[in-house]
């Protein structure tokens, strides 16, 4: 992976809000710092949410373009990272819905694994793809999207469970249950993949 642009030293200590305000006043370097600061977490969220690198690249670009377009509507009392991930989350879900790969799961649902779409890649291609993907990526690929969403938002965006509840229009209890179910699924997949250690005991 090539090196990404480095953030200018003078911007390192500044808050996201301060940087974004500077960008709104015409400072391109401030935007570059913001991008460098969030690109890894945001792209990680998108690629793991969609399981598709090309799509994740498109959504990544679209998310930042929305940030630029809607800069005037941004309010400083919002947390920048929450705003950024709210945009990315909406775009990802819209895309998954469009591709009929989105379904919410309720607390009563026991089964949290999703079948791969019928019109998706063939079994052989899928097997090959799975070989190349890491164990974690494979575990995420079979996770229910609404569980994956909560898990990835908490891991990548750094926003609290309460904020995720607001972002996803779900009660806090449901969000915590989805997180727990996501971890349970992850454990199960890792155990099935022969990961030893504490989980196998």
């Amino acid at each position, binding site marked *: 992976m090539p090196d990404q642009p480095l953030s200018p030293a003078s911007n390192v200590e500044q808050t996201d809000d301060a940087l974004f305000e500077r960008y709104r006043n015409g400072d391109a370097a401030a935007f570059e710092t913001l991008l460098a600061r969030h690109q890894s977490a945001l792209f990680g969220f998108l690629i793991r949410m969609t399981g598709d690198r090309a799509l994740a690249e498109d959504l990544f670009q679209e998310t930042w373009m929305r940030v630029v377009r809607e800069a005037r509507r941004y309010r400083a009392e919002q947390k920048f990272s929450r705003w950024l991930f709210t945009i990315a989350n909406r775009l990802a879900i819209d895309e998954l819905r469009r591709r009929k790969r989105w379904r919410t799961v309720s607390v009563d649902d026991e089964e949290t694994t999703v079948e791969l779409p019928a019109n998706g890649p063939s079994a052989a291609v899928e097997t090959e793809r799975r070989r190349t993907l890491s164990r974690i990526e494979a575990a995420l690929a079979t996770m229910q999207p609404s569980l994956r969403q909560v898990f990835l938002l908490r891991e990548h965006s750094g926003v609290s469970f309460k904020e995720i509840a607001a972002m996803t229009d779900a009660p806090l209890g449901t969000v915590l249950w989805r997180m*727990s179910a996501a971890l349970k699924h992850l454990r199960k997949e890792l155990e099935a993949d022969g990961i030893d250690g504490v989980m196998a005991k």
Partner: protein
Amino acid sequence: MNCEQANEVLMLDLYGEAAAADVVELKTHLAGCAACRRAAEASREALAEFRREATPRPSRETVEAVLASAQPRPFLGGIFAQLRPALWQAAAVVAIALTVSVAVKFWPQSPVQLAAGTSSAVTQPATTETSWDTDSAALSEHIRLAQADVAIGSSLDNRISGLRDALSDLHAGSSSF
């Protein structure tokens, strides 16, 4: 705390969001519940495993495309933000000038009356013409009243001083016992 509640607090605790009192209760629950203890341990392991994975990064082309599309185009908000200090200063100067000019035009009081704090309705003749003699008399009256106040103040000071002395004497007397 039951197992379901313990599970919720565990999720919050994994990210440092649980209240301290809830964490204490969780620990108590885990100490007595083998199933929850195993689940908690496995959750922490799974998270650690996930975090060991390198996070994918966007391609250089994508990053460059984002930077190109984000070239700042200062809009009116930005321009106003830069001009704001100068605009506020200009507005303050205009407001002060307006206030002074209105006061001078519509406030028919002499400077002496303003200084003495007397009302124009009481001291001014019905003709509303400014009389410097009247002003001078009013000022003299205020000075006389102020001097009387000072005299009363001095008298009070003397009394307080006397009381202080008496109190000191009293203290001195009581300490000698």
